[in-house]
């Protein structure tokens, strides 16, 4: 499925749009980390939670449950929250 990558993670993927597979968000992030080693831990902490200033959207809907089922036609967008300084 299509995964949209935010700017801060382009050091891993180099492109804004990549493909990854999986039946859940957890699977998708594992596949992304296989393709782009290190990317997952920047997004997901060791307790399997999305880090505080990161967001995931599936087809435009914000999702925090990493076990959320996905379909091959879904679009997953990873977004960096508008915070910081």
């Amino acid at each position, binding site marked *: 499925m299509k995964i949209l990558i935010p700017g*801060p*993670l382009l050091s891993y993927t180099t492109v804004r749009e990549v493909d990854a597979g999986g039946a859940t968000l957890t699977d998708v992030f594992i596949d992304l980390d296989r393709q782009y*080693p*290190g990317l997952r*831990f*920047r*997004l*997901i*902490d*060791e*307790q*399997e*939670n999305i*880090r505080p*200033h*990161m967001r995931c959207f599936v087809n435009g809907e914000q999702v925090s449950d990493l076990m959320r089922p996905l379909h091959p036609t879904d679009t997953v967008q990873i977004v*960096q*929250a508008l*915070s*910081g*300084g």
Partner: protein
Amino acid sequence: MVRSTRKQVRRPKVADRAKATAARRSRRVVVLVATRKGAWLYHGDVSRRTWRVDGPHFLGHIVNHVVLDPRDGRTLLAAAKTGHLGPTVFRSMDLGRTWKEAARPPAFPKAPGGAKGRVVDHTFWLTPCHENEPEAWYAGTSPQGLFRSNDGGMAWEGLPGLNDDPQYRAWMGGEQDGTPDGPKLHSVIVDPRDSAHLYIAMSSGGVHESFDAGRTWAPLVHGLEVVEDLDPANVQFHDPHCVRLSPGDPDRLYQQNHCGIYRLDRPGKEWRRVGRNMPKRVGDIGFPMVVHPRDAETVWVFPMDGTSVWPRTSPDGIPAVYMTRDGGARWRRLDSGLPGRHAWWTVKRQAMTADTGDPVGLYFGTTSGELWASRDEGHRWTCIARNLPEIYAVEAAELR
């Protein structure tokens, strides 16, 4: 008891010392500056008069520590995160031309179902292991955790004897029991005579010692004071800011604590507050502590205002380094070249260091982004960089 198996530090012969002095004078120093927005490397000429800047590295990353491996003189590790992305460690084997990210950065174990597990917010401290353990490193994190890598910083494992010990977890306290930037494990020290003999410090949580490479630990807090009305018998209340071992005498430790400057002579276990000998109008509060690379009696500190609400700035806005040449009995103010007024500086615990030159070069960085150096053991200071981001750590290393 200190283990009797440790070897004594051999005192070199006169000819060897002369050779070592000549070698020290011909080495080039690189000053590694970690900031809230990236890292910079300042390469000095042989005389340490002019500096060439290399950077930024990791622009926009919060870099807490950059350390050069003294065992090979070329490998760098950097502890980094961003305001949004999780913490990681980078390694360079070509002095920063290229960097490789750790495959498994420091991380706590996943908690069993339903339990709330700890999350590493950032790696705060990096220490190369013993010279006989090439490629091995220790890392201290926020919140407090101790990790070890045996492969040059690529894969890290926690030390459960500390990280998961119920008593130690209690002494670590909660999120509110540390610095404004989070509770930290820092000052990871390896005894140069014994790779299994370690010291660590926690803010808060006290100073601790291990004789078995971190499997078991014991507090080392006797003699240290705590904030008034708290009980010094409670290890949780101890806040060591920076602990250093003297390379010239590994049985001598110094400490800049939240409550003063201390010295400890092993195998003794009682810290002595040598900061009582500082001028009263200056006090003995601060963050960093620097020891001479060869003379255990010589130490430098950077006092800050610890009165009222703790401004943590240079007292009266007049920065100064203080030096002792006799183990803390007497202290001398060293401020030549530093601003004489209106300089409300803060120097963090990792942001002051020494090289091994002769005379020793000293370096410190301020939270207002200035990097200062002295090539004569603190007698005269010059600013070698301005307008950097908030400086978190400064390390000096010698290139081979």
